[in-house]
């Protein structure tokens, strides 16, 4: 069993729709939870990070963590064609802190927003 599971998609939604991206994990010692966006042939860029269970909002993006279920989500509201990318969830290894993190990644979900 992989430590982090993520549906690879691809996922296609019409412009303006709400997008839900999810990851599950098996290691309860993971501390920080991140979402990265990766455009084709580019490096991943950090979108959001969270530490505790609950929601964190940043503009059109909301990150949600449920540690009891070992489940994290990223919601994108009012999706735009420029949101088309691969979204990677990542978790920091036990014993590391944010800014000093060895990351375990999901496989990524490829998202396409259709104009």
């Amino acid at each position: 069993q992989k430590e982090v599971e993520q549906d690879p998609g691809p996922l296609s939604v019409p412009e303006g729709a709400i997008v839900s991206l999810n990851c599950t994990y098996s290691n309860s010692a993971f501390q920080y939870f991140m979402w990265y966006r990766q455009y084709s042939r580019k490096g991943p860029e950090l979108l959001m990070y969270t530490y505790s269970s609950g929601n964190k909002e940043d503009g059109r993006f909301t990150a949600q963590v449920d540690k009891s279920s070992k489940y994290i989500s990223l919601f994108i509201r009012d999706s735009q064609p420029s949101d088309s990318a691969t979204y990677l969830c990542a978790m920091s290894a036990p014993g590391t802190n944010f800014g000093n993190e060895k990351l375990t990644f999901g496989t990524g979900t490829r998202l396409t927003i259709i104009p």
Partner: protein
Amino acid sequence: NAGVTQTPKFRILKIGQSMTLQCTQDMNHNYMYWYRQDPGMGLKLIYYSVGAGITDKGEVPNGYNVSRSTTEDFPLRLELAAPSQTSVYFCASSAQTGTHFGPGTRLTVT
């Protein structure tokens, strides 16, 4: 700030050849990392460094070596390249703003 820069962008190697992937960051970050990304496999940590002169193995270190003589530079050395090392390699650095990735090096070993 240029952030994390990597050279070369692309490279084709023959089996058994060696090469060094270069990585430089100008953010004065102590922590640096090398990851590889294979299709459908996510990113996996090869090596990391917590500061100049200190390196340690990640999840998939076999076939690679690193050095960290300065805060800015963290080169990755491939000795005796094998087809299994065909991948996209990302260098990264981290501090309080999180982990920042370079643009990647696409390596093909044939």
